């Protein structure tokens, strides 16, 4: 039995006794089909390595019907404005080598499936790399161009474009072999309490998903929907920017976006979503 089910029963008992505890709310039962054609898996059996959760849910299932609807049609999804910008950049020649992304990768459709397997072990570099690392590697070593800021606009737009062509494919990051030690490190971070509030990722996203944290409805903290357009800041947000926000909210010093700690954490959190569809760029509040 999961912690959460125990919690639900606990709450139900408390309500029955008239303590007036707010009911556990969510995930809802809605289905997501984008543009009437891309079916998105928003609920799946938890991967084997997860000890305390039976079913994994996309964050989409925890949002209100209105916010959910915005993501169901690309015309309504504000992320697409940024994706269009990235499409132009895809064909724009930059750097000393006179190359654009399309010089090597042709159409962006050729990268279908890439988002689903990142972060990924890079044999040559001997480390686990995120999609952002790989893009900057391309820019520096293939194009001879300036690196982008890890969580900057150019970067998150490009990651969104690459993510968009993989929508509907199941997340499937590898956690065995050479990536295993990084994954273990990420798992350790996930369960470590940080900050003055002494909160780990698990305290909110494993023990309390479905409950409210003040005005916010806690999800499982899945990252299959990243990059995410947030209604609160009207732009696309990257995984590491989100991690940084979370760690900051525990009143701790955060790690550096793009650094080894967040890369390990991203691999671990991504592996918790193995089986959910790639959804990014998604819409959240």
């Amino acid at each position, binding site marked *: 039995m999961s912690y959460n089910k125990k919690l639900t029963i606990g709450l139900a008992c408390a309500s029955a006794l008239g303590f007036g505890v707010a009911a556990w709310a969510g995930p809802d039962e809605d289905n997501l089909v984008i543009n009437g054609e891309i079916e998105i898996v928003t609920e799946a059996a938890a991967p084997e390595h997860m000890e305390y959760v039976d079913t994994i849910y996309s964050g989409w299932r925890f949002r209100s019907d209105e916010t959910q609807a915005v993501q169901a049609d690309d*015309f*309504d999804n*504000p992320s697409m*404005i940024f994706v*269009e*910008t990235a499409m132009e950049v895809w064909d724009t020649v930059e750097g000393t080598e006179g190359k654009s992304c399309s010089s090597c990768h042709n159409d962006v459709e050729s990268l279908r499936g890439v988002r689903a397997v990142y972060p990924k072990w890079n044999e040559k570099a001997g480390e686990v790399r995120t999609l952002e690392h790989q893009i900057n590697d391309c820019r520096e070593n293939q194009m001879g161009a300036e690196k982008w800021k890890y969580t900057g606009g150019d970067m998150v737009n490009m990651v969104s474009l690459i993510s968009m062509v993989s929508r509907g494919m199941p997340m499937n990051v590898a956690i065995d072999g050479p990536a295993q030690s990084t994954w273990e490190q990420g798992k350790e971070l996930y369960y470590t309490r940080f900050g003055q509030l002494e909160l780990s990722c698990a305290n909110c996203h494993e023990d309390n998903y479905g409950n409210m944290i003040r005005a916010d409805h806690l999800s499982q903290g899945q990252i299959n929907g990243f990059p995410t357009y947030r209604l609160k800041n*009207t732009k696309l947000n990257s995984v590491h920017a989100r991690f940084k926000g979370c760690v900051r909210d525990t009143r701790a010093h955060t790690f550096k976006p793009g650094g080894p700690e967040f890369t390990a954490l991203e691999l671990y959190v991504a592996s918790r979503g193995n089986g959910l569809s790639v959804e990014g760029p998604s819409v959240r509040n």
Partner: protein
Amino acid sequence: MASGVKPRVKVPKSAAAGETITIKTLISHKMESGQRKDDDGNPIPRSIINRFTCDFNGENVIDITLEPAISTNPYFQFDSVVPESGEFTFTWYDDDGSVYEEKKAIEVS
């Protein structure tokens, strides 16, 4: 001129005579309210889309006045009755005097 402005509209290609169709429009625009200040404390001048209209074969469908509180990339969705084949004209008016126009034809069977 505000940069990165691009209008988009979504209109069905065909409809039955007298049918009510749903139209979606979106324009990428910063919608700078005029209330904010830059890093040096100087006010950032207002720069918004202040009016949006939609006409069908010369007849007005909708005429909207936009105010500074409307957020970035304004999106409008509205319904229109289509009596005959024709063309929708969408027009956005920028504070800086620019006018952005987009046209979409619709076939009535």
